């Protein structure tokens, strides 16, 4: 009975929880509600993924209005997987958020943060689950508006300018998407993704459809922070509250990358995107340049949160490389990295949240010598960092492995080599931090630093353990990613 309504509940529960968090007007109560709802959303997405894996795509007519008139939610392997990532990261980072947020944000604003958090979660889940392109725009704006709010709640005044810059660029991106949707509607008379995929084939020669494709690509790429459209990201991640950075790193850009997959492979078919529009010839070089430029920039950052922001730009490059290989293996690698990168970046930002909680700063020079005082936090950073580099037994290795396999499948050994070389750059910027926290004397020896409290360490280590677990047992992640890739490539075998 209720299991038939899960797709709607997935979005509606956080949406309802948002205003209730505001009305509760109490830091702890709002947090408790947000966390409970977020875990509930996580279990719903688990149930949805299970349902999809056992009985195929779920089609849900919202409000009982059938597809061409009403909005349709369509859950298949790929978006069930992304729903799981988004709700899972949100649930774990919320468990982490209570102490961290109380430390970083003024008490009277905390309930507003959780309201924004719930709305952001609504938007991200909505973008992922919906099968209607205009609905995508609406949820995208819900997610974006609430994320501007979340960033600006930090005490650092620079978060205000970061939020403003993100608002300007984000609105331009969303408006581009809106233009693209209008042009598609003009040519096909439908907003439903499934109908669009059927009808675009008949009109794909027209300049209008090609223009729509370009507007949509640029708009979504801006949201996904694909190089060179990433300028909003480093500051937004650096100055947002730590828990919020962890949420964004694990979800916001991932959902936008999912949208790229959805539009390039489902709405427009891969043949149109890559043979007619030759998107891969643009995406692959851009992604490669992005990986290198962002990694090198990360090496020179003095603020570790900002460094991780640049690292995120580089990692999104790997997902785009996987996408632009246009093979089942390449797309598998892209989707896998989407999941794995969410785990490792959320883990690393959460670790920085622990550090900020104790020393009040994420600047590299302030972190000197904290490895001895905070062994658990520092240890978590080391494992998370190794995962980011791609050391075996961590998730990072799995995604790099598949990416390299996909490159070799094309016979592009140079691409495999470049991926390996860029991993060494990641090693350089992670090592810089490890060296400072373990091998440098504390900047102020008289300062007493205690280990982060258990309420912060437990969620942190949950994420770290997930990084290792999914690096060893890949049956779930690789299995689902491969099925999703076959679905996207139109290869049902």
């Amino acid at each position, binding site marked *: 009975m209720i299991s038939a309504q899960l797709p709607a509940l997935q979005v509606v529960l956080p949406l309802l929880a948002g205003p209730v968090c505001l009305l509760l007007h109490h830091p702890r109560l709002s947090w408790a509600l947000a966390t409970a709802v977020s875990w509930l959303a996580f279990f719903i997405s688990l149930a949805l993924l299970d349902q999809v894996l056992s009985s195929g795509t779920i089609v849900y007519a919202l409000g009982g209005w059938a597809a061409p008139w009403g909005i349709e939610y369509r859950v298949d392997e790929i978006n069930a997987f992304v729903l799981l990532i988004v709700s899972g990261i949100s649930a774990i980072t919320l468990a982490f958020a209570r102490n961290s947020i109380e430390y970083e944000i003024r008490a009277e604003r905390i309930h507003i943060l959780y309201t924004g958090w719930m709305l952001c979660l609504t938007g991200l889940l909505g973008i992922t689950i919906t099968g209607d392109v205009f609905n995508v725009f609406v949820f995208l704006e819900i997610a974006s508006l609430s994320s501007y709010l979340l960033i600006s709640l930090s005490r650092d005044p620079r978060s*205000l300018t970061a939020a*403003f810059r993100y608002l300007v660029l984000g609105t331009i991106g969303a408006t581009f998407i809106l233009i693209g949707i209008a042009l598609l509607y003009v040519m096909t008379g439908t907003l439903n993704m499934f109908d669009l995929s059927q009808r675009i084939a008949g009109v794909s020669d027209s300049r209008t459809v090609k223009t729509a494709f370009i507007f949509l690509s640029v708009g979504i790429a801006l949201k996904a922070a694909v190089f060179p459209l990433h300028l909003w990201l480093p500051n937004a991640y650096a100055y947002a509250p730590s828990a919020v950075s962890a949420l964004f790193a694990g979800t916001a850009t991932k959902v936008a990358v999912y949208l790229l997959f959805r539009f390039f492979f489902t709405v427009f078919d891969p043949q149109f995107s890559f043979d007619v529009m030759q998107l891969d010839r643009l995406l692959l070089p851009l992604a490669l340049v992005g990986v290198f430029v962002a990694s090198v920039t990360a090496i020179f950052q003095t603020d570790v949160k900002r460094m991780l922001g640049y690292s995120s730009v580089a990692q999104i490059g790997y997902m785009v490389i996987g996408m632009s290989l246009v093979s089942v293996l390449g797309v598998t690698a892209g989707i896998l990295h989407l999941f794995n990168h969410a785990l490792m970046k959320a883990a690393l930002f959460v670790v920085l949240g622990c550090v900020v909680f104790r020393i009040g700063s994420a600047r590299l020079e302030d972190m000197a010598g904290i490895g001895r005082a905070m062994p658990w936090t520092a240890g978590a950073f080391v494992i998370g960092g190794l995962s980011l580099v791609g050391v075996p037994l961590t998730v990072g290795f799995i995604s790099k492995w598949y990416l390299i396999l996909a490159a070799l499948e094309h016979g592009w050994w140079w691409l495999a080599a470049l991926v390996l070389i860029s991993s060494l750059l990641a090693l350089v910027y992670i090592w810089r931090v490890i060296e400072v926290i373990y091998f440098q004397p504390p900047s102020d020896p008289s300062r007493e630093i205690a280990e982060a409290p258990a309420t912060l360490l437990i969620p942190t280590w949950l994420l770290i353990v997930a990084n290792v677990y999914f690096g060893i047992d890949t049956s779930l992640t690789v299995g689902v990613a491969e099925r999703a890739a076959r679905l996207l490539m139109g290869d049902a075998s």
Partner: protein
Amino acid sequence: MEIFGLYNYWIVVVLMMIGLYVVVASGNLIKKIVGLNIFQTSVFILYISIGKLRGGTAPILLEEPAAYSNPLPHVLILTAIVVGVATTALGLALAVRIYGAYGTIEEEEIEEQEN
């Protein structure tokens, strides 16, 4: 002349370019929001234009078959207008707080203070 027949689309394109130019070229945060508004408004006009049929009526309880304007794009753009208003409100609120923190809303002066 087809070029003049499509004049509202020309207006859309011109407004879009003006809006984007203002966003990129001006250093004043309020002017940036104004530019953003012009840019968004051009898209509103685009949506309204694609639904309109010259001589078409509103499709409400038509007794006999008649040419009508498509109401769907108009409904869609109502949603987008609401989103635009929310964005403007949030942008202005941020500008107020930026002014409170930095004492200016000129981008260059803010950057000077940040570095």
